[in-house]
């Protein structure tokens, strides 16, 4: 859950990028890392295999700035997408304030997307978190690939987005949709925080 320091007026929120292997979760963080001024980000920590597949998580701390008089920080995490790393995925998911589900838009990856979304739900249930109350957005990555290889955002909405969540078409490699996705989940996380402690 978000951490609010009333003494120093600071808010810290944890956002987790979830999704199947090679859908582009790490790519999102790398793009953000490359775009954000150095004084407003920490080191990007990547616990990865030699082949650069995420083994445990990637981590990027960001200084968002002052919102409602609170210095606001976001901790961005990715989980390992590969199926056999579920134990570590669960650990990273602990205490998440918001989740970005990064789906791979390639038509042949649809089953992996569905499986990963179901896995997210199962892991949240394990942690007694109701997915319906958790700030969650969908990102349909790799929309830059040839049209005959991918599903459109509308088709992906039909297949994955039963709850009519906010969804964003993206090409994380080039950065298209990365900012919009982060903005989308940030709004939901802070909105929930605002509702939990009404003014």
């Amino acid at each position: 859950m978000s951490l609010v320091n009333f003494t120093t007026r600071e808010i810290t929120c944890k956002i987790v990028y979830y999704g199947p292997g090679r859908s582009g979760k790490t790519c999102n963080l790398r793009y953000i890392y490359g775009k954000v001024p150095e004084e407003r980000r920490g080191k990007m920590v990547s616990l990865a295999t030699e082949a650069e597949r995420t083994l445990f998580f990637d981590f990027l701390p960001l200084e968002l700035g002052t919102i409602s008089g609170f210095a606001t920080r976001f901790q961005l995490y990715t989980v390992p997408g590969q199926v056999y790393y579920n134990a570590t995925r669960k650990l990273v998911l602990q205490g998440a304030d918001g989740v970005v589900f990064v789906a791979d838009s390639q038509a042949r990856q649809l089953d992996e997307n569905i499986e990963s979304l179901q896995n997210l739900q199962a892991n949240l249930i394990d942690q007694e978190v109701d997915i319906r109350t958790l700030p969650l957005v969908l990102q349909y990555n790799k929309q830059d690939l040839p049209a005959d290889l991918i599903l459109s955002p509308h088709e992906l909405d039909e297949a994955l987005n039963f709850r009519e969540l906010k969804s964003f078409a993206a090409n994380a490699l080039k950065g298209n949709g990365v900012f919009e996705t982060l903005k989308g989940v940030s709004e939901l996380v802070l909105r929930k925080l605002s509702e939990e402690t009404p003014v």
Partner: protein
Amino acid sequence: MTVTRVLEPWMMEPLERFVSEADARLTLIMTPAGQVLAQYGFTRAVDVMSAAALGAAIASSTQEMAGLLGERNFKALNHQGVRHGIFLAEMENPRGRLLALVVYGPETLAGLVQLFFEELARDLEQACPNVKPTEPVLSADFERELNNSLASLFGR
């Protein structure tokens, strides 16, 4: 200048006593999810978050390993290097399970850090008030400030 920061005032005295007695260079007290509740010795907030994320990850994976081996938990973990050692341990507190990550140098001993950590856990348990403070957080129109912050973050 070395900075000590705490989320709630009751943590300050036990933390300062621990740092002084154990001669710790850096100390973090955090939740199992890696959210920092108190800190000593770090200067950049983003460095604190990285250290906390890694510490929480080590603690979580160690706990999972304990589960696989049929142990309830491994309570503390110690790595000693040439110039620094790290001590990572959990404690029970009325606010829930907490983790402490301590970085120490050759000016102290791992045993002393462990000894004073146990005292720290007791002190924090005794100092913890029953009621968690609740105050209003965000104003209703926070979106504009959020949008401005994100736009400046991405140079837009």
